[in-house]
């Protein structure tokens, strides 16, 4: 495999030009700075793309599983109902600068949206049409824990080409045919020396990762045992019950479906939802199987680190650390996992 892999090279100064060139053919999405925030957005110029950043505030899952998506619209006239599906974005999208953790998150979303009995056709179209040029993490942040959950700062899963920052140049690891077709005529071959530097950068990044999160150990615990643990009685107490962690998360995939009426018809809309909201599981009869923060917090943690892990062999977490950074009460998922496991040791 290694022999077939293609390594290209690009000087940092050329990046904006490359993105501009890609823009002629594609919709190009890249990290940009908006009001001090790093966000993934379509760029109008290659210069807008930020090359030096930790990670975006929101995960780029929006481009595959949008926070709000019209599933269909309908028109009603003379008791005739006509259903119309929205037109897909006509251009293919190149997403530049996605972190390996976020790219890997897409493989986990695939399990929900593509690998079950029923497939989400809109999601599939976006997965097939989008090209991912990822940017490896030379300086993982202290909130990052990808290596605890099966990832790596320079992981290649779910990526078409991986850019490795060597300071003044990038080495580009071309990983798929899509990536190769996109880049082979646009970039030059990488030299032996850059490849060596790239290896060094990778090693250093990996060794700089902070303490491990006991995700594997949690998955190995007995479900019924941890489910009833008194641990849950108090760990949720500080949780505000907002949806920040779930909305910033690259792997959270829960959604709601609502109808909005217009004068002559309406739309059925899919919206992100959060397992931390009380209404998420409230039944019309008034029964709520998860009536308090205790049950909701338990659902979030166990869904990610136990149920999902049992079903798919890996947790539904890629260690991006967004929930750690942005939780308003610093309820740190790493601590929750480690304490739950620690209490069972």
């Amino acid at each position: 495999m290694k022999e077939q892999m293609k390594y290209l090279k690009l000087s940092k100064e050329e990046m904006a030009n490359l993105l501009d060139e890609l823009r002629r053919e594609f919709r190009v999405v890249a990290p940009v700075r908006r009001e001090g925030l790093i966000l993934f957005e379509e760029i109008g110029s290659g210069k807008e793309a930020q090359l030096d950043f930790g990670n975006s505030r929101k995960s780029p899952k929006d481009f595959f599983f949008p926070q709000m998506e019209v599933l269909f619209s309908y028109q009603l006239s003379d008791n005739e109902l006509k259903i119309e599906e929205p037109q897909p974005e006509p251009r293919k999208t190149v997403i530049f600068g996605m972190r390996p953790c976020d790219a890997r998150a897409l493989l986990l979303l695939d399990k929900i949206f593509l690998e079950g009995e029923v497939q989400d056709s809109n999601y599939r179209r976006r997965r097939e049409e989008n090209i991912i040029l990822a940017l490896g993490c030379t300086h993982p942040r202290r909130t990052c824990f990808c290596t605890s959950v099966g990832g790596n700062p320079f992981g290649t899963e779910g990526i078409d080409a991986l850019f490795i920052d060597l300071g003044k140049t990038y080495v580009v690891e071309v990983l798929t045919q899509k990536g190769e077709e996109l880049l082979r005529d646009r970039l030059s071959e990488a030299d032996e020396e850059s490849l060596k530097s790239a290896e060094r950068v990778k090693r250093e990044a990996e060794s700089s990762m902070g303490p491990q999160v006991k995700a594997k150990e949690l998955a190995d615990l007995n479900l019924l045992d941890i489910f009833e643990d008194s641990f849950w009685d108090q760990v949720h107490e500080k949780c505000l019950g907002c949806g920040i962690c779930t909305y910033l998360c690259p792997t959270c995939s829960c959604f709601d479906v609502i109808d909005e009426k217009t004068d002559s018809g309406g739309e059925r809309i899919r919206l992100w939802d959060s397992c931390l909201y009380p209404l998420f599981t409230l039944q019309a009869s008034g029964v709520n199987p998860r009536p308090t923060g205790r049950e909701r917090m338990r659902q979030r943690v166990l869904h990610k680190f136990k149920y999902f892990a049992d079903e798919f062999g890996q947790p539904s977490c890629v260690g991006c650390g967004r929930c750690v950074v942005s939780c308003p009460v610093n309820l740190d998922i790493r601590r929750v996992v480690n304490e739950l496991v620690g209490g069972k040791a």
Partner: protein
Amino acid sequence: MADLIAEMRQAARRLLEEKKVDLIIGFEKGTLPLRSSPCFIRHPEDVDRLTWDSSCENNLAKYLPGRKEKIGIIAKGCDSRAIVGLIQEKQLEREQVVILGVPCQGMLDRWKMEQLLEGREVLEAEERGEELYLKGCDFERTLPRAELLHRSCQVCRHRNPVLYDLLLGERVAESPVPDEYAEIREFERKSPEERWAYFTKEISRCIRCYGCRNACPFCYCRECFVDAEPLWVGKTIDLTDTQLFHLVRAFHLAGRCVDCGACERACPMGVDLRKLNKKLEKDVEELFGYKAGLSLEELPPLATFRPEDPQEFIR
């Protein structure tokens, strides 16, 4: 600071040991530099978890409504004002809480620091009197603390708790800033188009995570207007729906908001929520002469009226 923390722990221990309270709500050290985290302490042997610094940014009054236990609560000025409001709104009995007041020097604004450091990560931080030392993997800086305070804290007139059973530490000087509404007045002077553009730009970042709502000590409704039938405001992130959500959210806090900044600090998208809240605070003060969270006896401004209330706007 160390003295204050020792005093705090001792007071908490005594309350728990003497069974005057079942629970102490305070702050413990967080998992990141410049972060602390609300904590719930039930046993005297755990009181050493309690801490205090410029990152104790949450409004702990949030955790009071709906609880049954007798509670000891660490309260800075804004927490104490929220407690007053909650008692006034009958969400809490005065006797249910033992308020351990802490004079507050203002809390640091993580958002501001992030802007200042252009997103570079702080690995180490230390408060050195009026200065703040920050260290990252490729920088080291010492910055004046006052400039890094949250906007609310910079103009705060109630750094000293307004209601307490025990005051920990020494009283502090209130904000020297002459006009707490200066920012609002400046915004009012802009043209309607500029104001609309700003409001639109800010709200367009909202992701409706409800962090603002859930961090607010006054958002205790069992069912929020965004969830309750009939749905007056849509659930989507369409700009109109998010704008209406924020207008109504702010409006519901009119005469109640104590400008603790909890909503804004919770917001992961950095939406300028205070522009709305503070405007209502200003209008309530100017039109009805009322300031929230200062008096247990006075009625909230929208629960009362005066025959001579202004009405020039009514035809």
